């Protein structure tokens, strides 16, 4: 389906953020994902046209970055950190449990299209290990059980709220729009910081630092 006038206008406004149009390629790819859920051929061809570059140049970029998917993922895309620290602290166990539980392999999608699974690299939340991301929102201090109930709830259509994120988990497409730089008005929801982030501050107050 071709992009609507509104969508094209948004794409053009993304281009206008930059002094040189080609810089807009990454947010445009996020935007394309926010419409179809993945980077479609139509998305690639439209971006190439808007930026007056070749389609090969767009697909070269799209395939470089792991967040761009060339085939559909689930409505809730679940990433389990299996980089060393999370892996050791439970990430490996969580990941293999989820594979069994969902009956999918890495990069697989459940048959109902609700949940997809990916093992991910360090997501800058090591003090909250083991970490699971859903649509790139933080689910901190996970266990095998909490992760299973997360995906079960997601398949049932009522995933729990992220630990540090908005009050409700948005869909993959909605999250992609945020990554394209579109404000969804949810910035003020959720905590400002989790306990570990505040640990040093608390200790210093207790111990009367400075």
């Amino acid at each position, binding site marked *: 389906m071709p992009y609507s006038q509104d969508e094209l206008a948004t794409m053009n406004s993304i281009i206008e953020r930059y002094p040189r149009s080609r810089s807009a390629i990454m947010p445009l790819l996020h935007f394309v994902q926010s419409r179809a859920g993945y980077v479609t051929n139509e998305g690639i061809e439209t971006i190439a046209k808007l930026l007056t570059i070749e389609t090969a140049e767009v697909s070269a970029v799209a395939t470089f*970055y792991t967040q761009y998917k060339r085939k559909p993922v689930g409505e809730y895309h679940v990433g389990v950190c299996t980089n*060393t620290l999370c892996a050791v602290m439970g990430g490996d166990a969580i990941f293999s449990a989820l594979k069994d539980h969902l009956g999918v392999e890495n990069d697989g999608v459940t048959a109902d299209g609700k949940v997809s699974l990916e093992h991910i690299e360090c997501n800058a939340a090591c003090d909250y290990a083991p970490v699971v991301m859903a649509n790139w929102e933080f689910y901190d201090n996970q*266990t095998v059980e909490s992760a299973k109930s997360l995906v079960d709830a997601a398949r049932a259509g009522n995933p729990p709220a992220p630990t540090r994120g908005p009050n409700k988990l948005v869909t993959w497409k909605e999250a992609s729009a945020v990554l394209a730089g579109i404000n969804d008005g949810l910035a003020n929801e959720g905590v400002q910081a989790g306990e570990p*982030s505040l*640990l040093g*501050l*608390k200790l210093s107050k207790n111990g009367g630092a400075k």
Partner: protein
Amino acid sequence: MTKLTPVLSAHWDEKDSFTIQAYKRHGGYKASEKALAMDPDAVIQLIKDSGLRGRGGAGFPTGMKWGFIPQGDDKDHYLVVNADESEPGTCKDMPLLMANPHVLVEGCIIASHAIRAKRAFIYIRGEVTHVVRRLNQAIEDAYKAGHLGNGFDLVLHVGAGAYICGEETALLDSLEGFRGQPRLRPPFPAIAGLYARPTVVNNVESIASVPAIIANGAEWYQSMGTEKSKGATLYSLSGHVKNPGQFEAPLGITLREILELAGGVRSGHKLKFWTPGGSSTPIFTDAHLDTPLDYEGVSAAGSMLGTKALQIFDETTCVVRAVLRWTEFYKHESCGKCTPCREGTWWLVQILRDLEDGRGTEADLEKLLDLCDNIMGRSFCALGDGATSPITSSIKHFRDEYIAHLTNGGCPFDSAKSTLFEGANA
């Protein structure tokens, strides 16, 4: 008695700390007001005097970096903030931006004034939806409040999952709309960076440190830290510790001191190995508990301060498994441009997998070390170098454990023991 000095994190415990109101409540946007009234060169001088060094890993003096930007060259200049934070173990910039994005916005205003940039970009990793929201909102609010606009623009650019884009020249290529692969240097970004224009690339924490320095003066900043490593910084403690988290302290604090504050290694266990600054910094053991965590101290002890990502592993952790995981990370994240890193990490992973499974001989350890020798310093950028650090340092400290895998015919560890939910079937 505590050495902690919360500056960046000072108000994170307030529920609305990320809003512009909260930021202003504590004097936010006063520093930029002050800086904009100063001569740009005076701002650079002040930062030079403060001794602030880059917090992205290399510790390059920030003021000196700004001073490299040519003046009066009639060209556009750019500030690019590196918020890609993807080095394993590193987890300071994201909580900072989640809790207080405005301090970065204000830092950008000041730094751009100093280097005479009319436009700045924040390149943030893409896998952090909520942090993107907070930062985007902060920028919007700063525009509404008139701190942005009027000739200075700040653009948030969201990455899409590529560790290499933390490397500054790869970041610039990515920001220009290309595959994020590192560029040849020279020319350095200060001469030909973004769009081939003079560009400063700084880490989030480096730029976020600037408003307080402007507000409190260079001397105040100088008064913290050690001789050559001035100021305070965020140490991120993670892993097998009682209480992981962020500790803002003067440079030069030791792991022993931080562990004490955090309640030590998780109970019933003892420290086995740790990284001082992310997975690319050679690992340390309990022999290094008293190494001052400043740039000089750590490097004298044979590693690097890096991003101050203190990942703690206790005696339940198999070092071979840990190193294999990191190596798989480097293989996954190698950009593919250069042969040593691309092909080397492919090979390293295969050898380490065999070793973990108890296949191979002690000669494979020599092969592994020789391969690392052929990658280290032969790669195009520091990613390839970093890939060798866990291997060479772990073989140095734990050669016997590698050999134990061979004699045991597999991993002698029970991986379940090192999980936080001990007993779960791994």
